[in-house]
């Protein structure tokens, strides 16, 4: 599935956040979007996730079945165990498959525990596992490795590379090393806006 952004602009009230963005995400591509804080990276993710609509322009090719996303915050449901959090977004997948996803991220023992009982790094990995559990052709990652140590960062990257195979992976990050871990093409935010000016 190809995702095409054409001349996308977006404002919060009077403040223009995005102006004239043009880019295409090819099926199976991996892209890391970089840029200074406040330049609109997360806003662009929200547009791709369908949480906001562009003021002008269009985004074509967004999957109607929803988007697999790792948010800036973990956004796990506190009343549900990790396994139930995964099952919530992927109710048709057998529990064994979901447990395997948690196991791959070193959370095999924590499947029956609640988010409040876990460390920040564990919750982050659970949020990544949840995105992998949801079968959508588009995976959006907002600073996916926040709070992970070196070892878990590499493990999570390998996990994402494996489970994002065949999907469009679009990540926002500050760190070029993270983009390399994801074997992603780096896009600078400023370049997206200039495309239409060329």
């Amino acid at each position, binding site marked *: 599935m190809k995702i095409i952004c054409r001349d996308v602009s977006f404002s919060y009230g009077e403040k223009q956040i995005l102006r004239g963005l043009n880019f295409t995400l090819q099926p199976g591509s991996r892209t890391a979007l970089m840029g200074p804080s406040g330049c609109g990276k997360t806003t662009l993710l929200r547009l791709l996730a369908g949480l906001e609509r562009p003021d002008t322009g269009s985004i074509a090719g967004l999957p109607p079945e929803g988007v697999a996303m790792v948010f800036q915050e973990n956004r796990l449901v506190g009343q549900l165990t990790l396994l139930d959090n995964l099952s*919530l977004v992927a109710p048709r997948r057998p529990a064994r498959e979901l447990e395997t996803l948690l196991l791959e991220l070193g959370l095999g023992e924590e499947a029956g525990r609640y988010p409040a009982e876990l460390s920040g790094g564990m919750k982050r990995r659970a949020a990544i596992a949840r995105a992998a559990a949801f079968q959508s052709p588009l995976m959006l990652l907002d600073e996916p490795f926040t709070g992970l140590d070196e070892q878990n960062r590499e493990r999570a990257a390998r996990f994402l590379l494996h489970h994002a195979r065949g999907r469009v992976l679009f990540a926002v990050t500050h760190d070029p090393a993270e983009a390399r871990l994801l074997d992603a093409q780096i896009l600078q935010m400023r370049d997206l806006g200039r495309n239409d000016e060329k």
Partner: protein
Amino acid sequence: MKTSTSSDKHPFPTRIIVIVLWLLLWQAAYLAVGEDLLLASPAATLVRVAQLAVSGSFWGIIVQSLGRILTGFLLGLVCGTAVAFATAHSRWAHAFVSLPMNIIKATPVASFVILALVWISGKNLSVFIAFLMVLPLVWSNVHQGIKSTDPKLLEMAKVFRLPHASVLRSITVPAALPYFLSAARVGLGFSWKAGIAGEVIAIPTAAIGTQLYNAKVYLETVDLFAWTAVIILLSVLLERMMLVGFDALTKRLNRMKREVRE
């Protein structure tokens, strides 16, 4: 809504000492007044409660009053919750419902009782009064609970296209549940007391409120104190039973979730 928490509770010995001190004060007041018609003694009240408990009609009266008031209470819980969910996502619907709810909250129980006597029988009046006491309370609390749902979780649900039933079960209901429980706990006390007050005015046969009324009419002060003690005891008992029930329900739900998973 603020309710008492475990930190407000005093140790058991402290509570016993406090009760004994108040009973002593009551006895002292009784001795100071020296007139059984104005103030019954703790001992006479206790003896009368025991006499009532072994009398034939006592338990029937309690069962009937309890049955009617609990019916109204449960109806209020169900309707208040349903209306809260129905009006949660529409500002207009909320505004439309909030007017009568606020009027119900502000209207004295006696006004409703007298008005309702025109429409319904005295026997069923306490059902209606208990219902009215709990309805706006549950509605406003559950509404507040729904509104307190984490918007970030709702966004997550939108991105992952979760079905409405899943959002309700896993996100909205857990957010609203503490507010519902708090309203139920407070509402039970409200509806119990208002239901009895309704019975005092409507005087149905076989009702606690009717016994209070008769005690007043026949100047049976000991009976008045005894029935009041029964009302207080039942109120405490009901609240305890409800808390135990909610606790058991929560544990059962958690256990069911675990069993389904395994």
